């Protein structure tokens, strides 16, 4: 390292290896996603990038920001200060000012150019994104060059640097956006951007020269005069009533003000959207308000990650500074003051929100949609419930904000750097994983609920939380950090709040979709206990340092961090093992560019020489083929009677059939049609005896098949059908024999129709008797159906005298739930009673046998 250039380059390189490690970790996560969800890399539609694109692009933009900070020396300096943030120690080196400005700018430009090259090679080209290849790279370099010039300049007032930089760079951005809007060609963009590089260099050189000479302009005179005014205000304050009050004041002044301050900065921008929206777009107004209400907890989570450092001057930056550590207070009292300070932050932030929202609604004249929506809600739920819900939601938001501020304090208070950083990485990787894997996690949850595993998971989670809390409590007691009396009071208080919350949820939540024990789980997990009580323990450990183990090597540090980052990945992989085990399929075909799976059962008696019937059985929404095989027992009957049964899988996660007006519906129809082709090619299938049936959402799909493939499907059967398309959707007039089963106590698809409890906004279901009568009209049956009793709880209604002998039959199960009559019972809390009065599978098969496709 003989030259100044080498030294400056070395300095810029130091200490940023972790960025590369983080990037590698992220690439690993993406690689895992690519292996597990191969479909994610292909575009979902013919137009537009695949859904994964943002997740691939995000790290590159993060590194862009990181480069801005590194190459402008922004990580080491005080952005708000008047002095240049160019490191002053470099000024005394025997190097020209031009070199001081030139080398960091050159290295920065090279780094930015390589970043853009990497983005093009790793993301833009593989994903087939429609992005220009040259000028965005030049823009990145210019952006950095101006950032450097503006950062290195000394300013007359504190904070002016940030304002000037934001304004200048936003202007640059705005010009580029305008150019994009008017579709200016790429070479013009390069011609606009490239000449700015020498300009920025001269500005930077001038800035470094001024900083080197110590020329700091002074605009403080104006502020000093303002300060004098503030001095004149009376500010005599008496002594604090207690050490606790003093410490709470301290916490508020040290970090508590940050949340309300950031809210005060953000709110005007968010609420400005209301002025754009106007009353004509009620949805936009409501979404804006929702966004505003969610801002404090999100900002709190953000603020909480920045409060861990205590004193940058300390040798061990994450430790407790001697000033804090020598407070004559117990560690529990110090933590208590932090919790109280966080409470004041929360209240101040929400006070701002509560004042700003009505003002903005009045100013922009957008009260109308809010009042209307509340009115509708009151009509549907009653005033008391609505008021109680609103109060509860507000308290929940308050509590959530506070929880976000304090729940990870214990990590910061340990003062262990690896733990703090790993905690931040953990949160980030969870956020990142929620995007691509959200649907998958949801289907795991649905599956857990359908197989009753959720009871055990809930019990496990509650047990885990309580036992961790108990372990912490014994440690607190043994170390005499908290008195036994306080421990008992806190535990009792926690229990009372949890029970109260459970009662309230029990009263408010009316949907049958959520079992009560899940509400209990929500109540137990929502009220903080374990992590908060860990905070005094963590602080005490940090304040009274134990003998350190031999210093941890970097490799070990990285290993631990990778372990923690990998934990969510491993957890999800672990959870998906039973998923793969249960979600058994036997084959797949490619249909409409997507891989579609199915589970086929071929009876052991199958003989290539004899044509056999084929039964297609479609699973319900959120379910999967093997589950339906298990519930319906079609395979057992197929073995006995010698026919083929296939259980195709819906698409998306959770798996479903797209019974709606979107493009997905015809994809599903095409898939099933192609599946029949595939099976017909491989097996000797009797073309006159292909039947379809389904449960719930699968039954809705069966109706669709009767209208689209009526030339191939001889007869259909439906159990607890969810008809989300209206009868009028069906334009096919060919009679199709139909047999249906429906329980009168079906809570998910009501026998008498009405709003679906699962999607009350989107789906209105028909009455089953009316639907059956419509079908009888389609099949041109006689108008007087025959009713008979087949079991104590089952009646049979048959429309006779239909065209082509296409009978229409409805079995009504008194008190039956959203279940498969005669099949394996599903969890009763979710779906209700499974009747054994009739065996839907066998009755369907008997009906199918009587109705082969006429004319084949």
């Amino acid at each position: 390292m003989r030259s100044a250039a080498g030294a400056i380059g070395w300095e810029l390189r130091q200490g940023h290896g972790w960025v590369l490690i983080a990037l590698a970790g992220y690439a690993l996560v993406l690689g895992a996603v690519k292996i597990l969800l191969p479909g994610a890399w292909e575009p979902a539609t013919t137009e537009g990038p695949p859904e994964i694109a943002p997740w691939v692009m995000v790290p590159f933009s993060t590194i862009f920001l990181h480069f801005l900070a590194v190459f402008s020396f922004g990580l080491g300096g005080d952005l708000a200060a008047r002095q240049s943030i160019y490191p002053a120690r470099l000024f005394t080196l025997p190097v020209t000012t031009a070199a001081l400005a030139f080398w960091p700018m050159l290295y920065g430009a090279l780094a930015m150019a390589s970043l853009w090259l990497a983005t093009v090679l790793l993301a833009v080209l593989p994903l087939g994104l429609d992005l220009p290849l040259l000028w965005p790279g030049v823009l990145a370099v210019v952006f950095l060059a101006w950032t450097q010039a503006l950062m290195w300049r000394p300013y007359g007032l504190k904070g002016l640097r940030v304002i000037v930089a934001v304004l200048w760079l936003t202007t640059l951005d705005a010009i580029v956006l305008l150019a994009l809007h008017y579709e200016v060609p790429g070479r013009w963009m390069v011609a606009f951007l490239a000449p700015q590089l020498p300009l920025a260099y001269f500005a930077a050189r001038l800035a470094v020269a001024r900083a080197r000479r110590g020329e700091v302009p002074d605009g403080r005179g104006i502020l000093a005069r303002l300060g004098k005014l503030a001095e004149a205000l009376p500010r005599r304050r008496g002594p604090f009533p207690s050490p606790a009050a003093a410490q709470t004041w301290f916490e508020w002044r040290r970090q508590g003000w940050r949340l309300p301050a950031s809210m005060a900065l953000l709110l005007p921008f968010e609420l400005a959207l209301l002025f754009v929206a106007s009353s004509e777009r009620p949805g936009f107004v409501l979404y804006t308000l929702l966004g505003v209400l969610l801002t404090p907890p999100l900002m709190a989570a953000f603020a909480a990650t920045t409060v861990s450092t205590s004193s940058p001057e300390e040798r061990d930056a994450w430790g407790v500074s001697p000033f804090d550590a020598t407070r004559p207070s117990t560690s529990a009292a110090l933590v208590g003051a932090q919790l109280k300070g966080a409470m004041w932050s929360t209240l101040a932030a929400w006070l701002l929100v509560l004042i700003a929202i009505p003002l903005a609604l009045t100013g922009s004249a957008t009260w109308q949609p809010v009042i209307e929506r509340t009115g509708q809600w009151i009509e549907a739920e009653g005033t008391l419930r609505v008021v109680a819900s609103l109060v509860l939601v507000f308290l929940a938001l308050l509590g959530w904000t506070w929880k976000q501020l304090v729940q990870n304090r214990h990590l910061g208070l340990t003062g262990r750097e690896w733990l703090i950083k790993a905690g931040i990485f953990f949160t980030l990787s969870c956020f990142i994983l929620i995007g691509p894997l959200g649907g998958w996690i949801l289907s795991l949850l649905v599956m857990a609920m359908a197989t009753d595993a959720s009871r055990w998971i809930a019990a496990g989670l509650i047990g885990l939380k309580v036992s961790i809390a108990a372990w912490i409590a014994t440690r607190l007691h043994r170390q005499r950090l908290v008195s036994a009396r306080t421990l008992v009071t806190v535990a009792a208080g926690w229990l009372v709040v949890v029970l109260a919350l459970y009662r309230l949820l029990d009263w408010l939540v009316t949907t049958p979709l959520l079992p009560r024990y899940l509400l209990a789980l929500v109540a137990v997990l929502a009220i903080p206990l374990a992590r908060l009580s860990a905070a005094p323990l963590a602080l005490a450990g940090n304040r009274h340092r134990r003998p350190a183990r031999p210093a941890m090597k970097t490799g070990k540090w990285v290993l631990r961090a990778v372990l923690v980052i990998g934990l969510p990945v491993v957890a999800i992989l672990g959870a998906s093992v039973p998923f793969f085990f249960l979600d058994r399929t036997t084959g797949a075909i490619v249909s409409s560019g997507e891989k579609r799976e199915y589970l086929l059962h071929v009876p052991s008696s199958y003989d290539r020489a004899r044509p056999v019937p084929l039964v297609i059985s479609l699973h319900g929404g959120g379910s999967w083929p093997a589950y339906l095989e298990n519930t319906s027992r079609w395979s057992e009957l197929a073995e006995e009677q010698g026919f083929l049964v296939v259980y195709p899988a819906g698409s998306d996660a959770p798996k479903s059939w797209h019974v709606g007006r979107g493009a997905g519906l015809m994809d599903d129809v095409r898939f099933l049609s192609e599946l029949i082709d595939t099976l017909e090619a491989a097996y000797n299938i009797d073309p006159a005896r292909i039947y379809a049936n389904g449960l719930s959402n699968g039954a809705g799909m069966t109706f669709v098949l009767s209208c689209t493939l009526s030339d191939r499907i001889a007869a259909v059967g439906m159990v607890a059908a969810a008809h989300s398309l209206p009868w009028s959707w069906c334009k096919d007039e060919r009679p199709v024999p139909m047999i249906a089963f429906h329980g009168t106590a079906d809570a998910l698809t009501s026998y008498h129709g009405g709003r679906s409890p699962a999607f009350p906004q989107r789906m209105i279901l028909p009455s089953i008797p009316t639907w059956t009568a419509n079908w009888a009209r389609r099949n041109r049956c006689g108008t007087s159906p025959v009713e008979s009793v087949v079991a104590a709880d089952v009646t049979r209604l048959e429309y006779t005298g239909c065209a082509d002998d296409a009978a229409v039959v409805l079995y009504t199960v008194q008190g039956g739930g959203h279940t498969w009559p005669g099949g394996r019972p599903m969890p009763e809390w979710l779906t209700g009673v499974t009747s054994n009065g009739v065996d839907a599978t066998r009755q369907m098969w008997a009906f199918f046998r009587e109705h082969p496709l006429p004319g084949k």
Partner: protein
Amino acid sequence: MREAVIDVSALTRRFGGLTALDSVSLVLPRGAVYGLVGANGAGKTTLIRHLLGLLRPESGTVRVFGLDPVADPVGVLSRIGYLSEENDLPGWMRVDELIRYTRAFYPAWDDGYAEELRQTFALEPAAKVKTLSKGQKARAGLLLALAHRPELLVLDEPSSGLDPIVRRDILGAVLRTIAHEGRTVLFSSHLLEEVEQVADHVTMIHQGRIVLTGPLAAIKEAHRAGERLPSLDEIFVTRVGSAAAPGPEV
């Protein structure tokens, strides 16, 4: 014998492979000015951090006023005045806020005395701590450590922050008064001349071990060479060798 303020026995502490304190035992009775001397890295600050409960003993025991500072931080810390080497007062506080905040923790806080010290030290109440010079910050820290008239005053390398005038006049006078009132002062320093001027007792620490402890006069007497009493500096060189002789901080 007078009651011991500080009672350390067989205290050992290692940081990784480095032994900072090696089986240190020390009993300091009430009512004197104790000087803790040693080269940089000898273990002075580590010993002081144990007295404040900031480090948990690896082996051995630490008792201050007969109490364990780790188990009972309130009982010990509320009777100690402490000026840290780092002097990490929160920069965002104003001097008057700093005083108002700190007094809440000490029931024995003497408002009159605090005001007197503030004037002597020429500290502007409205000044923010971060705008103070290094010396002024040290004076502010000293004010906070003194104003509740602690039974034990602990100063970690006060000379590194205080200018010569404060050091000679104020520090010397203040420490003397405290000792006369029957209270105790423990201060660490690598400037042996200064310790010689102020301390009654000297404890010399080298590579984590106590090499010498006792009244200053007695130590000098024991090292007498002929007519002349040796200086502390000379004694230090004889005891631990010239290679380890402390000098001004670089």
